[in-house]
């Protein structure tokens, strides 16, 4: 099929745990079909409880984990066929990850600006330092940072929110078509959390970057995403436009998930009207 950015056909992943005789097989992802169109960038939220296979699915799309069955095509090319380091580099240039904990994602002993320069050199084809700095600065400006704030600094010198913005800026350097973000705001300060979620929305509308956004928080998924997939035990139980799915979930598991969202509203009291 043409026109797909990513396409998953009957993808499954089974992990085998234990020894030869006491092997236990865990099916993390079961027969998942999924398609992201290339011409229309979207934010796709994948939600479900832990163990539902959402992170494994993300790792397979990032080509970190190989599926046990089925095929993942990126722009028509099967990820299994990526063997050479050149092909690998070309793939990584277009698909960038954002991880949950930015403090774990970066080497604490390595200065942050080095990450930018290395990414610029490897993935953006930048040869000289001046251009690398300029590109880095542009990417940092996109996320509300500047090179002056980052230069010569170590990960621990930034707050979680700043570091996660930095991670996004680094991912932007290679001008990717797809970002796979696994719980990107859960380690970020509350006052900055929504600004990062908003950032993904602006990357979609301004830079036309699609995002696969993994979260267990339905309220955040509602805010950030255009389409949603709800997973349970490795399979997709419900999918569709986020607003439709979350306002009237059909599958019992989706309803259960929605019911589990803690409401911020107390039952109507004497002071339910807002006076501010």
């Amino acid at each position, binding site marked *: 099929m043409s026109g797909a950015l990513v396409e998953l056909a009957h993808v499954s992943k089974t992990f085998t745990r234990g020894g030869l005789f006491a092997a236990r097989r865990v099916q993390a992802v079961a027969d998942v079909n999924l398609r992201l169109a290339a011409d229309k960038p979207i934010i796709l939220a994948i939600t479900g409880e832990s163990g539902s296979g959402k992170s494994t699915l993300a790792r397979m799309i990032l080509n970190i984990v190989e599926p046990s069955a089925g095929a993942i095509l990126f722009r028509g090319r099967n990820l299994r066929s990526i063997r050479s380091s050149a092909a690998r580099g070309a793939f990584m240039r277009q698909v960038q990850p954002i991880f949950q904990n930015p403090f774990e994602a970066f080497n604490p002993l390595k200065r942050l600006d080095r990450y930018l320069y290395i990414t610029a050199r490897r993935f953006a084809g930048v040869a000289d330092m001046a251009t690398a700095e300029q590109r880095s600065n542009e990417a940092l400006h996109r996320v509300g940072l500047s090179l002056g704030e980052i230069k010569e600094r170590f990960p621990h010198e930034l707050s*979680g929110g700043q570091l996660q913005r930095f991670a996004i800026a680094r991912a932007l350097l290679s001008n990717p078509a797809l970002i796979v973000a696994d719980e990107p705001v859960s380690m970020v300060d509350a006052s900055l959390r929504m600004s990062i979620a908003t950032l993904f929305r602006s990357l979609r509308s301004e830079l036309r970057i699609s995002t696969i956004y993994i979260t267990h928080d339905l309220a955040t998924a509602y805010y950030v995403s255009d389409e949603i997939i709800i997973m349970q035990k490795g399979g997709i139980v419900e999918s569709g436009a986020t607003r439709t799915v979350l306002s009237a979930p059909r599958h019992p598991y989706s309803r259960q998930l929605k019911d589990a969202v803690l409401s*911020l509203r107390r039952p109507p009291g004497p002071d339910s009207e807002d006076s501010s």
Partner: protein
Amino acid sequence: MSAPLAGRATRVAPEMAPRVPVVSVKGLKAYYRTDQYGVQRRVRAVDGVTFEVRPDEIYGLTGESSSGKTTLVKTLAGAVRPPLQVVGGTIAFSFLPGTQGLHSVPPPEVARVRWRRLSYIMQGSMSVLNPVRRVRSSFEDFAFRHMGLSRRDFAAAVESHLARVKLEPSVLAAYPHELSGGMRQRVTIALATICRPELIIADEPTTALDVIVQKDVLAMISHIRQEMGSSVMLVTHDMGVHAYLSDRLGIMYAGRLVEEGRTDEILGRPRHPYTRHLIATLPRIGDDAPRRGLEGSPPNLADPPPGCRFHPRCPLAMEVCHREAPSLAVHGPDHRVACFAVTPEAPS
């Protein structure tokens, strides 16, 4: 009083129970002090915090990371080790009259009180339970000496207590890794409540849990707290959890308490500009309004801004905010706000 939520129960209104607060914290200052190569650093993680936890209530504490929540909890629990130092203020526990906090009490006294009077529910249940000991042994390690029961009676007490958190006695023979996250957290809840402590400190008790399990665990904390008659100090950044469980809520920002009040009051009519922003930006299903982050980031507590610590990010900042730190002013029953811009006396 508002109608009770599912899983919550109506309580006696606070004014009808004028009892001594379980813990009363006054002007507490706890700093991290380091002196390396002649460079002295003081991180003012908790800087003049005053509040109390009343009998039979769940007091919620919220704030972002590095707002001093964890330092405050550590200080309350007496886990004050260098570089952390208590620089000023007092912590008065109802069960330790005449003392100024666990950090100033001799170790044997702490050992007598800890877990019997004051227990904790921590975030990572995996790191609370000893991974190489069965659950039964953990119960013996934590609670046996406080209960004053024979081995047999103790075993029976543990089993009946586990039933309160809907766990089978068979979990006693399991190792922590054999249990699911929700079961493990229920084990730690059982562990924290079995001695009927006056105060339970719950630090992010459900953050590591799945959304579906979370509500059960919260309902369980609420239920068992009532049954055992303990007060809870609930520390979490998740406002949904506070809305579900906390009776009163304190908001911390950069080491200080900026607002405190009844949870429905704080969620419905926040006054402090920081709290207002926090509540307004929470994502809600069915609400499509775009959310904006606050400018800037939380201050570095080694070098906090002068005056009100929120003023560099505050939309209402006035000249006075740069110079003076506002103290908590009363804004109605049980509602205190530390802000010059919203205090009634201030011209606004």
